[in-house]
């Protein structure tokens, strides 16, 4: 219960940023996914259960904000949160390279899975076109953004109060 409030706050802030800021920092039509950054960070500091739950909620909000079918985003982000959380449980290290590598890989896998689901549902266009024009540029953009915000976000969300310095977190 003590962790519910920061988690809910982080997802709400992600929603506000996704609606109000993300469209205006889009590069070439590629919009960063704030929900993904928050979900993977939550998963890395909280584990697979929190990652899956927050991923489902954030993904559902992501779906509801758009005009595409509702559900694929929730499914994909729930799985992404679970996998990132499982990585946390088995191989988390106190450095910045590993979490950011996980973020990059999870971002790529999430975008691919979401694009594939939209293609299956005939709502997203040819998958290979999406791969080169949305998925790969989006992954790179998310990774760059994660590099900038992950240390601060992890500091806000992590459970261990002693881990407060940028260096140890980052």
């Amino acid at each position: 219960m003590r962790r519910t409030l920061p988690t809910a706050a982080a997802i709400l802030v992600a929603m506000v940023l996704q609606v109000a800021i993300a469209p205006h920092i889009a590069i070439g039509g590629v919009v960063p996914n704030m929900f993904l950054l928050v979900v993977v960070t939550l998963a890395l500091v909280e584990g697979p259960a929190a990652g899956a739950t927050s991923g489902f909620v954030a993904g559902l909000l992501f779906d509801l904000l758009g005009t595409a079918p509702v559900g694929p985003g929730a499914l994909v982000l729930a799985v992404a949160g679970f996998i990132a959380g499982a990585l946390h449980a088995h191989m988390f290290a106190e450095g910045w390279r590993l979490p950011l590598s996980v973020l990059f890989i999870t971002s790529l896998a999430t975008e691919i899975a979401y694009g594939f689901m939209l293609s299956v549902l005939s709502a997203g266009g040819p998958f290979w076109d999406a791969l080169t024009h949305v998925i790969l540029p989006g992954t790179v953009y998310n990774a760059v953004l994660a590099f900038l915000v992950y240390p601060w976000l992890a500091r806000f969300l992590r459970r261990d109060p002693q881990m407060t310095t940028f260096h140890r977190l980052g």
Partner: protein
Amino acid sequence: MKLPERDTSTGSSALLAALVVLALIITTVYYREADTGPVHSLRRGVKAMTAPIASGGEVITRPFRSTADWFSGFGVRREELEVLSAQNAELRATVAELEEARQENERLTDLIGFVEAREFEAVGAHVIGRPATSWEHVFTIDRGTDDGIEIGMPVLGANGLLGQTVLVTGRSATVRLLSDRRSGVAALLQGTRAEGIVSGAIDGPMELEFVSVDTTVTIGDVVLTSGLGGVYPKGLLIGEVSSTQAADNDLFQRIQLLPAATLKGIEEVVVLVGAGTIPDLGGGE
């Protein structure tokens, strides 16, 4: 190095399985329910709730966007550039409209008593939200059902057709751009009157499809709505041909278009009320 924490992996897996099933159920319900169903209603609620947030973002980022626009037009005075751009866009639209009117006049002068009514009631709106994901080309305006907006109404920018309303709440509406992959517009080439379908693409510019290889198409040809299907009224400016190609055995040409109106820099639009309320070929919400 942090030692692994003993996670209740079985419980987590069961939770994930339950969430996946729930997501699939939501997707199924979304496809099977009517527009008044719970998932669609929830989406309208979220849209209504986030419209003011999007509007706030639009206001907050406006100075930064103006600065970026100023830098992009570096070398020419900003006021001068704005005036020239506006004049150019207005003239191009006027020329296209006049040419269309001239050809239309020629065709119709022999038809005594035939008058095609093209007077629509229009509602002005501000753009309050831009595309929030990379997967779709939509934007939000500050007019909704309270202002007479319905699903399926054409939306125009200063230079031409932008798209169609696909989701409407009381005080806001979501507009799907022509460049969205799910958009489809019955169109014709102004010069040859050849008809086709303009559709958006996720990987680049709009395309005019189903135009025979026997039709002569040149770069710069103006493309207008044909009015077929009843979705969009006839004669709205869509754009102009930017490239065309066809292989030896193709039945149809591959024609790419430069849109007359894009969302970049647009802050006000016009919704044609009563012009048509049929969702486009991609389907409405």
